[in-house]
């Protein structure tokens, strides 16, 4: 590597790098700041809106499962070049998302991934022993439920559409969205769970 990887101040390195790129007119400071703010504003609440809409509108759900990015844009959420694939839980199917090769994640929809998702331990074990991984997160599935693990090895970014929790029949769409957590959309938790 051109730059020494040893113990160093990466914050200073980022500043020096960005300054050099601005000085050479490769990009502008403003572009970087705006993009950083946009990314910081992306939260799992966006994904939760999508999930709740799918729960309340079966036609939307069908479109969401056919083309995730197009369906999300219907809700006014701009996701750029994200190729979103939404995988639906069923009574006897539970989905789990991982990227074993790096840490691919639908950031434009859910925001930044948690540190555990990027850990070697999760990436190594989720494809090999998903039920033990889920158990560590407090989720034990019945024996007759199949676990379906998705390894995001290419351009597709995956998100789970969990099942709507029992007992929410009298809740409205926004109340249901509030039950959907980031972990439920990765597949390590169920919605409405603490």
């Amino acid at each position, binding site marked *: *590597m*051109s*730059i*020494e*990887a040893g113990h*160093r*101040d*990466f*914050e*200073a*390195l*980022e*500043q*020096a*790098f*960005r*300054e*050099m*790129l601005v000085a*050479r007119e*490769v*990009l502008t400071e403003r*572009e*970087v*700041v*705006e*993009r*950083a703010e946009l*990314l*910081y504003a992306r939260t799992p609440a966006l994904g939760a809106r999508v999930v709740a809409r799918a729960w309340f509108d079966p036609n939307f759900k069908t479109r969401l499962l056919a083309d995730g990015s197009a369906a999300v844009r219907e809700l006014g959420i701009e996701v750029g*070049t994200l190729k979103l694939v939404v995988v639906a839980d069923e009574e006897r199917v539970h989905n789990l998302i991982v990227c*074993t*090769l*790096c*840490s691919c994640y639908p*950031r434009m929809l859910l925001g*930044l991934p*948690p*540190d*555990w998702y*990027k*850990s*070697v*331990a*999760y*990436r*190594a*074990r989720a*494809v*090999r022993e998903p039920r033990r*991984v889920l158990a*560590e997160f407090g989720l034990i599935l019945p024996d007759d439920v199949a676990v379906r693990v998705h*390894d995001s090895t290419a351009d597709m970014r995956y998100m789970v559409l969990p099942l709507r929790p029992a007992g929410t029949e009298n809740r409205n769409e926004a109340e249901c969205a509030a039950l959907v957590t980031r972990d439920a959309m990765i597949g390590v938790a169920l919605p409405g769970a603490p």
Partner: protein
Amino acid sequence: MSHDVGGQLVPGRIPRGQHPFMPWEMRVDALMWVLTDPSRPGGPQMTVDELRYGIESLAPEDYRRLGYYEKWLLSMIEILARHGVVDAAALERRAHEIALERAHAHP
């Protein structure tokens, strides 16, 4: 290679700690997006594939030790240095200066 970890037997529980996202990390993420944006006039400076390959090429001990955004930053710099867009030696000097300035400002 050290990044291809699917199925490896990793002992112990999945670490659940979460570090707060630092502004410099957000800027690294933003730099990645800006530099790989295919809609830029003249095309992108690099692709995500080049970036990933750069990270995969790190020494295994560095791959395991360095943080997520630290690896991305090193990979971006490596690619642009190779393309002649940045001068690695000048970059090192400037980074060192900034680190010293910060150390003096916050003793």
